[in-house]
C-alpha cells in the first residue's frame, strides 16, 4: 500500500516570492454539488419512495440503518441550511426554543433545530408537505444532542432509541458499542415491522470504510504547502458527506475523482488561494450563519486578503474521516477493509467493524476524555505546518469547547500563536462580527502580515 503522505511535502519550504501560487477552479466541484443536491432532495421524496425516515442528530455509525433498506436520515434537518441562510429566522428559531425553557447557554445548533419544530417547519417542504418521521435513532456522543433528540421525539411522538459511542477504544468498549448496535437493530425491526437485511449492512460497512478512508486521504493532502484546498472548501464538501452519508455508494467515485484531482494539484503546486503566506488551523465550529451553510465560514474568509489560509481543523477533519491515531497523537489516513484484507461475513463482523471504525479510527471518540484533544491538536499543528491556530470558544457548545484553552500555552511553547473569538455556531445574536473581524485582523498583523502583502 502506497503511503499517500509520501507524495506530500513534509517540510515547509521557504516562501518563494511572497507565497504566490497558481490557482485554478476545482474540476470535481460540479459532481460534488450534484451528489449533494441529489441527497438533499432525497429527504423530500423519501416517503413517496417508501423509505424509512429517521430522526437522528449525529452522523456516526452511518451503515447501521442501511439494513432496513432505503432510509433517509434527518441529522440537522432538511431546513437547517435555510435557517442558517436567514439570520432573522435563525434568531427566531433560537427564541422559540428559549420560550420553552432552553436558555441561551444551551446549544444553539440544537435550539435552531428545536425552534424550527416549535415554529412548525422543521419537517415541512417548501411546497407544504410534511415528511412524517418513523423513529429517532440517536448515536450518543454529546449530552445536549441526546437530550434534544428526545425532546424532538416527544414532539413527533415517535419511538426513540440510543446507542452510546464510548469514549474508550479498548476491545471491551468496542464490544459494548457493537452489542448496543445489535440491540438497535432488533429495536428498529420491532418499530418498523421490517426485516433487517444483514447483506445490506455488510455492504454499507465496506462502503463506509472506503469513503471515510478516501476522505481522510483527501484531507491529508492539505498538509502540502501550498494547500490544494482550504477549510472553506472542506466545509462545503462536509455538507455533501453529511447529506449523502458516508455509507452511500455514489459518493465513492466522486471522492476518488477528487482525490486524484487533488494529488495532481499537489504535484503541480496548485493552491486553494493565490497567496499562502500563513497556514492556519480553525478549532471548533465556525459560525454557520450569515453566508449560509452551503458556503460556510464568514470567519474563514477574513484572512484571505492577508494571505492567511485555513488548512485544517480538528473538528472539521474528525467528522467524516477514518484516521489512524499514532502514539504521538498524529493522524494518518487509515486503510480500508479491502486494504486490511478483511471481508465481513455476518452481522457480528459488520457491527464490530463499525465499532472499530467509529472508536479506534474516529479520534473524536477518545477525545471525549479531553486530554487527547490537546495532544491531537499539537500533532495536527506540527504535521500540517500550521503558523497559527484560531479557536472559536463557542458560547453554547459544551461539547467542542473543552480543551481549547488548555491547548494555547502548549502551542505558545511550540512557537505557534493562537487567538480566540467567541460566537455561537448557530445563533447570529451571539456574533459580533466587526469585533471578531477586528480581533482576527490584529492577530494576523501581529504575525507580520498586512492586507497589501496579499
Amino acid at each position: 500500500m502506497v503511503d499517500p503522505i509520501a507524495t506530500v511535502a513534509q517540510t515547509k519550504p521557504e516562501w518563494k516570492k511572497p507565497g504566490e501560487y497558481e490557482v485554478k477552479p476545482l474540476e470535481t466541484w460540479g459532481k460534488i454539488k450534484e451528489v449533494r443536491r441529489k441527497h438533499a432532495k432525497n429527504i423530500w421524496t423519501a416517503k413517496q419512495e417508501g423509505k424509512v425516515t429517521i430522526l437522528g442528530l449525529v452522523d456516526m455509525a452511518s451503515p447501521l440503518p442501511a439494513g432496513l433498506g432505503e432510509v433517509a436520515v434527518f441529522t440537522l434537518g432538511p431546513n437547517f441550511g435555510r435557517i442558517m441562510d436567514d439570520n432573522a429566522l435563525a434568531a427566531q428559531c433560537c427564541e422559540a426554543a428559549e420560550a420553552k425553557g432552553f436558555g441561551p447557554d444551551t446549544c444553539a445548533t440544537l435550539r435552531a433545530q428545536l425552534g424550527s419544530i416549535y415554529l412548525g417547519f422543521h419537517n415541512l417542504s417548501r411546497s407544504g408537505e410534511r415528511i412524517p418521521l418513523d423513529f429517532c435513532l440517536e448515536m450518543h456522543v454529546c449530552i445536549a444532542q441526546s437530550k434534544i433528540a428526545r425532546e424532538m421525539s416527544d414532539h413527533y411522538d415517535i419511538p426513540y432509541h440510543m446507542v452510546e459511542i464510548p469514549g474508550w477504544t479498548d476491545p471491551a468498549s468496542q464490544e459494548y458499542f457493537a452489542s448496543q448496535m445489535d440491540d438497535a437493530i432488533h429495536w428498529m425491526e420491532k418499530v418498523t415491522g421490517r426485516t433487517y437485511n444483514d447483506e445490506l449492512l455488510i455492504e454499507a460497512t465496506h462502503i463506509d470504510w472506503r469513503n471515510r478512508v478516501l476522505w481522510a486521504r483527501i484531507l491529508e493532502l492539505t498538509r502540502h504547502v501550498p494547500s490544494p484546498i482550504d477549510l472553506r472548501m472542506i466545509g462545503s464538501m462536509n455538507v455533501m458527506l453529511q447529506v449523502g452519508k458516508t455509507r452511500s455508494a455514489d459518493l465513492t467515485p466522486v471522492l476518488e475523482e477528487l482525490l486524484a484531482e487533488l494529488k495532481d494539484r499537489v504535484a503541480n503546486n496548485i493552491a486553494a488561494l493565490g497567496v499562502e503566506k500563513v497556514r492556519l488551523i480553525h478549532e471548533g465550529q465556525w459560525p454557520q450563519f450569515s453566508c449560509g451553510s452551503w458556503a460556510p465560514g464568514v470567519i474563514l474568509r477574513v484572512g484571505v486578503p492577508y494571505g492567511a489560509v485555513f488548512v485544517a481543523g480538528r473538528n472539521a477533519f474528525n467528522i467524516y474521516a477514518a484516521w489512524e491515531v499514532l502514539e504521538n497523537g498524529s493522524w494518518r489516513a487509515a486503510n480500508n477493509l479491502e486494504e486490511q484484507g478483511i471481508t465481513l461475513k455476518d452481522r457480528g463482523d459488520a457491527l464490530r467493524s463499525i465499532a472499530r471504525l467509529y472508536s479506534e479510527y474516529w479520534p473524536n471518540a477518545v477525545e471525549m476524555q479531553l486530554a487527547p484533544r490537546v495532544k491531537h491538536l499539537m500533532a495536527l499543528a506540527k504535521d500540517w505546518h500550521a503558523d497559527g491556530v484560531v479557536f472559536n470558544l463557542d458560547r453554547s457548545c459544551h461539547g467542542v469547547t473543552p480543551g481549547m484553552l488548555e491547548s494555547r500555552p502548549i502551542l505558545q511553547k511550540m512557537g505557534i500563536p493562537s487567538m480566540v473569538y467567541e460566537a455561537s455556531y448557530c445563533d447570529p445574536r451571539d456574533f459580533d462580527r466587526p469585533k471578531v473581524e477586528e480581533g482576527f485582523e490584529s492577530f494576523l498583523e501581529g504575525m507580520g502580515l498586512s492586507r497589501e502583502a496579499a
Partner: protein
Amino acid sequence: MGALEKMTRVIDDRHGYAKGWRERTGGRIAGYLCTYVPEEILYAAGVLPVRILGSHEPEDVTAPYVYGMFCTYCRDTLAQGLLGRYDYLDGLIHGYCCIHIRQTYDSWLRHAPVPFSYLLYVPDHIESDRAIPHLVSHMGQMKVAVEEWTGKPITNEALSAAIEVFDTNRRLTQKLYDLQKGNPPRFAGVDILKVVLASQLMDKVEHNKLLEELLAEASQLPPQEESDVRLMLIASEVDDVEFVELIESLGATIVVDDNCVGTRYFLGEVGNSAEPIAALAERYARGKPLCPIKDISTRERSRPPHVVGLATDYGVQGVIFARNKFCDPHEYDTPAIIKALGEKDIPSIVLECDIVNPLGQFRTRVEAFLEMMRVEAL
C-alpha cells in the same frame, strides 16, 4: 457538642479533618469529583475518599484554563485545586460524567499534579443491559489500578465490609430524611445538607457514629414549627450552606432534595453479594437516582417521575430549582420536570446559582414565590 455541630466543624475545617485522619490512620486520601465514583473500592483499600467541593469565594485563577461559560461548580472546584487547598491529596479520581467537570479533572492534573489519578468510565447508556457488564469491567480495572497504587490487594471481604459501612451510612441518612416527612419536619433543610456534606468528607465509620448520635438526639430537637411551607430543592451541585439558610430564613423548610450532594448521592444501597464489584456496578447504574447526564436512554424520562415521587412522599408544596450557572445538563431537564410538577399542581421557580450567589436578589424572588404559595393556600 452535638452531632450536628461536630459535622459542621468537619465541613468548616474539611482539610484539617482529612489531614488529621491521615495522621491518625496512616492511610491515603483521594479526592473525587462526581457521585459516580465507587468510593467503596477506595475505602476497601484503606483510602479516604473526599468529595471535592467549592468554596463559594470569588476566584481569578481558572480563566486561563476553563472557559468562563463552563459551570460554576467546575470552576470553583478547579480553583480549589489550583490554589493548593487540596495539596495533601494522594489521588484524584473521577467518574465519567459531565464534560464540564471533566475539564476540571483534566486541568487539575495538568496544573496541580497529584501522585495518582484515575478516570473511571461510567457508560452514559447506563439504563441499557449492555452497560452493566461493561461497568463491571471498568470498575474491575479501577480496582486493579487502586491495588497497584496502594500496593495492597483489595479482597472481596474488604470490599464487602466497605460496602456494608457505606450502606449503613445510606440507611442512617435515609432515617433522617424520613423524619422530614412529618409535619412539621424535624430538621431544617440546611442541617440535612450539612449531614450529607459531612458524609462526603469524613470517614464513613466516624460519620455513621455521628449519624446514630444525631438520630438519638432527634426526638429532643424542636421541630421546625416556624416554617409554614415545605419545599424541595432540585439542584445541580449546590453545597452553598448560606444559600439554603437564606431560603429557610424566609419561613420555609427544604424537606427533601434532588441534589448531587443530597439524595442523588446517598439513595440506593449496594447490598450483600458474593460478587461485590457486580453489586457496585448495579447500584451505581440502577440503584441511585440518575443524574441528568445518565437520563437519556429512553423517551420515558426517569427523572421527572422520580422527582415527583419524592415531592409526593415528602408532602412538598413548592420546588426551588437551584441550577448552577451554565449547567446545561440540568437545564435540558428543567422544562420536563417543571411540566411534571405542574401536572401535580406543584409550583416552582428557577434560580441560577453562581460561585458567589446573589443572595439579595434570591431573597426577593423566593419571598415572592413563598408569598404566592401562601396566598394560594388560603
